[in-house]
């Protein structure tokens, strides 16, 4: 469990990125921080592994104040996946994945074995192990990033707009893969995005942030959709634009779901197995 208590961050230039932020991120669940730029979502994420230190308040991991922990050791037990991978361009895929286990003193053979099995986990062909990052597609690089984040089998996985730089088709693929993976491994995931659809798809808990890390609303996707707390939230999730106001229309004996603009969104079915 990660808990923020009255956390604030003022940068050296005097701007307040985050003002009085409090939140509990439950274990083994995906918490998505969603907001536009300037909402402080990345700053909040980076306070967990002390890439940014809070100016006021405390961040606790399982009751332990991160400010009392040594940053390097703390970061080595937290997985971190960033936009566009952040892979080391001079290291091969396998060496990128095993970087942290090797830093922690794991032997090469053991680390390589672990790295290869992680490639399986994230759906990367093992033949790519000897390639360099630039020889991979954007989607493959992102998978390497995820594998690297999981390399030390961390309890916590921080993901900072990890799928922001890939095209929509690959992104959908990666999102589905992450959901499947999370069902198997059940990490405490903190995921930052500016894409509300991605937030609703991936989040067990969705936290909508407005400027300065102010929580506009938090809850499950269903709770937020059913009851937007403010005009800001309604606007953000698109409820007021009718995008999410779906209704059913009979068409050739089947029930077709259409959105507020009259565009077909899908077919209604009673079969729970069909998805």
């Amino acid at each position, binding site marked *: 469990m990660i808990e923020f208590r009255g956390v604030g961050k003022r940068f050296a*230039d005097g701007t307040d990125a985050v003002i009085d932020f409090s939140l509990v991120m439950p274990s083994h669940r995906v918490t998505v921080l969603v907001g536009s730029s*300037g909402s402080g979502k990345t700053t909040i994420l980076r306070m967990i592994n002390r890439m940014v230190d809070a100016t006021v308040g405390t961040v606790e991991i399982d009751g332990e104040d991160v400010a009392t922990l040594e940053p390097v050791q703390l970061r080595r037990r937290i997985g971190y996946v960033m936009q566009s991978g952040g892979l080391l361009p001079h290291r091969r895929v396998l060496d990128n994945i095993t970087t942290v286990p090797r830093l922690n003193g794991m032997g090469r053979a053991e680390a390589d074995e672990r790295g290869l099995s992680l490639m399986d986990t994230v759906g990367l062909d093992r033949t790519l192990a000897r390639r360099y990052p630039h020889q991979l*597609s954007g989607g493959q690089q992102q998978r390497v990033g995820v594998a690297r984040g999981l390399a030390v089998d961390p309890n916590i996985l921080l993901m900072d707009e990890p799928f922001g730089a*890939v095209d929509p088709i690959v992104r959908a693929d990666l999102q589905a893969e992450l959901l499947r993976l999370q069902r198997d491994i059940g990490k405490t995931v903190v995921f930052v995005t500016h894409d509300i659809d991605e937030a609703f798809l991936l989040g067990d808990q969705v936290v909508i942030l407005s400027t300065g890390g102010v929580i506009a609303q938090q809850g499950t996707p269903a709770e937020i959709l059913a009851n937007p707390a403010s005009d800001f939230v309604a606007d953000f999730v698109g409820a007021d634009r009718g995008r999410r106001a779906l209704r059913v229309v009979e068409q050739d004996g089947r029930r077709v779901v259409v959105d507020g603009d009259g565009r077909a969104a899908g077919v209604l079915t009673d079969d729970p197995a069909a998805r």
Partner: protein
Amino acid sequence: MNLFLDALAWLTDPERVTGPNPLAERIGEHLWYTVLALVVSALIAVPLGYLIGHTGKGRQLAVLGSGAARALPSLGLLTIFTLIVGVGNAQVAAIAVFVILGVPSILAGAYAGVEAVDRSVVDAARAMGMTETQILFRVEAPLGLPLLLGGLRSAALQIIATAVLAAYVGLGGLGIYIQRGISLRTYDEMLGGAILIVLLALIVDALFAIAERVARRAIGSAPSRGRPRSERPEPLSTDRQSTLEEIR
């Protein structure tokens, strides 16, 4: 044209092997001064450059200092240094002059190499749990190697060209042929010596060019082809920008 033929004849004369001032010995001296000065320059400039590149501090000072060092006239400096340390220690004076010449290029290569590393890569390395030393030696130094080699390359060329001055304080080297040529009006000898210096410079330049290529390959960096639009990272959002600034 005649002069060139004379120079070639002078170069191929058996006297160059058996007579006084044999070529091999002078070339050896010239290379020795170059290598020694280059190593000393690198020992000073590489750590300093890495420190500047990694911390982002002191860059202004380095630029100013480099500019000043480059503006110093080598011959005048050599004369003063030799007078200070005494003719018996002329080698120390000469190496000091060559080092002053070599440091700026290497320094610039070292810090430019580190600075050129994609900040998101450094950020990722730090977020993974690398210590600052590990970031410097396992990420910034290898990725900055091609630019560092570029700095060494231009330092080496400048030192080879300037090592001619060693002859003026009685240290030999290939400059001796030029000095003799001028004072004895033996222009075949002067031109022959100059040709040798040029050849030496070209060979060293080629070796560094190969080393740079190998380094670029080894760090796996693609020749800078444009990546498809969809794979390019989006511009940094403002909150991320400020966190990056904070780290620096």
